C-alpha cells in the first residue's frame, strides 16, 4: 500500500530512531525487536548497531523511509576507505568469518564491496562518456 505524503514526511522526520529505542527489524531468524545502541554511516548506507553487537543494515529496519538514504561515493574520503580496508584485512587475518550474518565483518565487507563496485563502475562509465 502506498503511503500518503503526510505519512512519508512524518516517517522521515522521525528517522532514524533514537539510541536506546526498541526497534523492529528482519533478522536471519525472522522478525525481531532489540534495543538500538548506535546508528553509524558505513561507506554506502547506515548500519544500526544493536545492544548485543549485531549490525543491521538500515533497509531491514521497520519504518525505514523509502527510498532510503545513501551516501554519495564522492563523500567518502581516501582516509575513510583506507581505514575500512585495514579493518577488513585485520578481521580476515584474525580468522573472522564473513559468512556470519549480521556480524561486523559481514556488514563491513558488504558495504566495502558495494562502495568499490559503485565507485569503479561509475567512474568507468563516466570516463567513457567524456572521452
Amino acid at each position: 500500500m502506498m503511503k500518503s505524503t503526510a505519512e512519508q514526511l512524518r516517517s522521515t522526520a522521525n528517522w532514524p530512531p533514537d539510541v536506546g529505542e526498541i526497534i523492529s527489524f528482519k533478522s536471519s531468524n525472522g522478525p525481531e525487536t532489540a534495543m538500538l545502541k548506535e546508528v553509524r554511516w558505513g561507506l554506502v548506507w547506515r548500519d544500526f548497531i544493536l545492544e548485543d553487537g549485531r549490525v543491521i543494515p538500515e533497509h531491514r529496519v521497520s519504518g525505514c523511509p523509502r527510498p532510503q538514504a545513501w551516501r554519495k561515493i564522492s563523500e567518502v574520503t581516501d582516509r575513510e576507505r583506507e581505514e575500512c580496508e585495514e579493518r577488513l584485512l585485520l578481521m580476515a587475518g584474525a580468522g573472522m568469518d564473513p559468512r556470519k550474518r549480521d556480524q561486523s565483518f559481514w556488514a563491513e565487507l558488504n558495504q566495502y564491496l558495494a562502495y568499490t563496485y559503485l565507485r569503479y563502475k561509475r567512474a568507468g562509465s563516466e570516463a567513457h562518456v567524456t572521452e
Partner: protein
Amino acid sequence: MSRPDEENEQQQVWRTLSEAGLVEIRLDEFAERIRDVKRIVIVRLRELLDVNNSVKERESAACSLGTLKGLELKVLASQPPDPSEM
C-alpha cells in the same frame, strides 16, 4: 525532504546494487561477489593506465584490488569444503 532528482538517484543506486547482488550478499556467494568487484576494478585500472594521468586514482584502484585479493584468499580459505568433492 529529498528532491525528486535525489530520489531518482537513490533509487538508481538501489537498483544498481540489487542487480549486482551487492545489497545483502548471500552467505555462499561472498567469494563470487568479491571476484565480480575485482573484475570491475581491473577494468578501471586498465583504463587509468591507458588514458588517465591521475596517479592518486590509480593508487586507490591498485590498493582496492590488493585488498579484494587478500579478502578473497581469506574467504576461500575459510569456506567449508564442498560435499560433492569429498
